[in-house]
């Protein structure tokens, strides 16, 4: 199929439609408003549901309701809106329901800016809401990956009965790139025999809830959820490593900064500095072991973590590396995208300090 020029936010919407998303609930917020805009035009054409909710709190609870009925439901927002959704995401996870949530991150805290950011790493990977849950977090760094991952996300969510978040910075929502719609990996999915589809053919109605009257029952549910999360950690870790085998410095980054670092690597290597990029694609589960194994090798002097935040993923990087090598940091916050030159300087400075 010929390549077409798509905007990131349009791709999020179209990929969801192609993955069989039955219902979209959302509320406009920059820099992702093209998603609800596209959905409002195209979902009805496919006989599907589009609702512009009165708020993000309403949108995520509509997702909760639709998911409980066994439908493929999705919402999208940007940082402040995702903060508002955290309670609902906790309920969805606590009720063991699948859902797809896209966060097109912008500068924070508070209202912040409308420019791209990665300062929602904590709230994405640490659960964000209350309770012992985790969301599976995928971080595409180009529009083709975005198209693939959003489609896959619906299967992953259904397979594990767990919310999946696609975390991109606003840049990825706003840029246009040529992509092709290629088939993505489809999974054999279990029947949704827990869904509240009415009592027909059943003795007792299905009940979807995150409320337990007996703490033993709640503990049991948590243990089951914990086992499920372990299974996710074992099977869903994704990463990409470029030039890490002979690197003296490994740069760790995801999303837009990872993309910028590909240009940084070329420049550093022409200057005689062997640099590599380790790019976590799943932010949770974090690719702990592969990162550890690359960094532990003798050729690696140090690690430079680069983020569009004050440093959040760096915690996971440090945990993975277990103190084996020094971890340096370079970050811009509030909506500023680091430049190729800035990262080159940071890498050189870190290497100088290491000597």
């Amino acid at each position: 199929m010929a390549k077409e020029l798509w905007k990131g936010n349009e791709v999020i919407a179209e990929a969801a439609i192609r993955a069989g998303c039955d219902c979209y609930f959302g509320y406009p917020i920059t820099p992702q408003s093209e998603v609800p805009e596209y959905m409002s035009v195209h979902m009805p054409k496919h006989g599907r549901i589009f609702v512009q909710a009165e708020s993000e709190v309403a949108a995520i609870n509509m997702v909760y309701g639709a998911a409980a009925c066994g439908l493929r439901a999705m919402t999208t927002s940007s940082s402040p809106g995702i903060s508002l959704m955290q309670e609902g995401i906790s309920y969805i996870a606590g009720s063991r329901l699948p859902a797809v949530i896209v966060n097109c991150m912008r500068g924070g805290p508070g209202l912040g800016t409308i420019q791209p950011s990665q300062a929602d790493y904590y709230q994405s990977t640490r659960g964000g809401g209350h309770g012992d849950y985790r969301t599976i977090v995928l971080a595409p760094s180009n529009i083709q990956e975005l198209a693939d991952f959003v489609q896959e996300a619906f299967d992953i969510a259904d397979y594990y009965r767990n919310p999946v978040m696609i975390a991109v910075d606003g840049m990825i929502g706003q840029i246009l790139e040529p992509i092709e719609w290629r088939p993505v990996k489809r999974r054999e999915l279990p029947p949704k025999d827990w869904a509240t589809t009415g009592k027909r053919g059943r003795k007792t109605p299905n009940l979807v809830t995150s409320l337990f009257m007996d703490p033993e029952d709640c503990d049991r549910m948590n243990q089951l959820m914990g086992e499920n999360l372990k299974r996710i950690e074992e099977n869903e870790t994704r990463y990409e490593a470029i030039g890490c085998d002979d690197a003296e410095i490994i740069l760790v980054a995801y999303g837009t900064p990872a993309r910028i670092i590909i240009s940084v690597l070329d420049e550093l290597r022409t200057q005689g500095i062997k640099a590599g990029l380790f790019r976590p694609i799943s932010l949770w589960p974090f690719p702990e072991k592969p990162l550890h194994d690359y960094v532990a090798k003798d050729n690696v002097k140090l690690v430079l973590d680069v983020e569009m935040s004050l440093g959040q993923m760096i915690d996971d990087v440090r945990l993975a590396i277990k103190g084996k090598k020094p971890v340096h940091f370079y970050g811009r916050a509030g909506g500023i995208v680091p430049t190729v030159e800035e990262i080159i300087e940071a890498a050189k400075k870190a290497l100088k300090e290491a000597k």
Partner: protein
Amino acid sequence: MKASELFQNRINIITGHFGTGKTEFAVNLALSFAAEGLKTAIADLDIVNLYFRSRERRSILEDAGIRVICSSQQHEHADLPSLPADIMTLFEDRSYKVVLDLGGDPSGARVIARFLPRIQREDSRLFYVFNASRPEIATIDSAEEYLRRIEDVTGLECGGIINNTHLCEYTRAEDVLAGEEAAIRLSEKTGIPFICSVAWKRLLPTLSGNAFPLFPIEILMKKPWEVER
């Protein structure tokens, strides 16, 4: 062919779906006018797109002697739908050759409607930038529907179709030519004249001998990972 021969009106209003490359074209058009020695102004009236607007190339434009007028001038990074008062200069001072860069959809184009009585008194023309690689307007029918919606909200009749079919850095000459063919079909269907095809300067050698005019451009709006080599 000189830019001022292709674009003979004093005020050139550039519109089209977001992602057609309309802003890149508008910026290049203004630079071409200035290079011909014309007293040039560009007004960025894009209140719809956020990250890639002509105001972001303000210094390149101003270095070329072009007057730059932006929406929400005091807050370049905000998405405030405010219009600057000095846009009136462009209607009143007829010594300016003007490029108006409108927002990337019918709602973005709406901002021009309030100037309609002024525009109608001036020597002006609305141009529709077409990109056959953009799925939302890839068919002749969808492209025409979009064009008509822009005409409806602006109250202006479209006076020219510009083929800007591209796939960013992956654009090949055949993409430009396939887009040109579609743009000409759109022109035939709507009766709106086809003006030219836009092409990156590096593609010009392979496109030489093209039956229709070519407007060469340089890409000025780089993505953060695109570095000069």
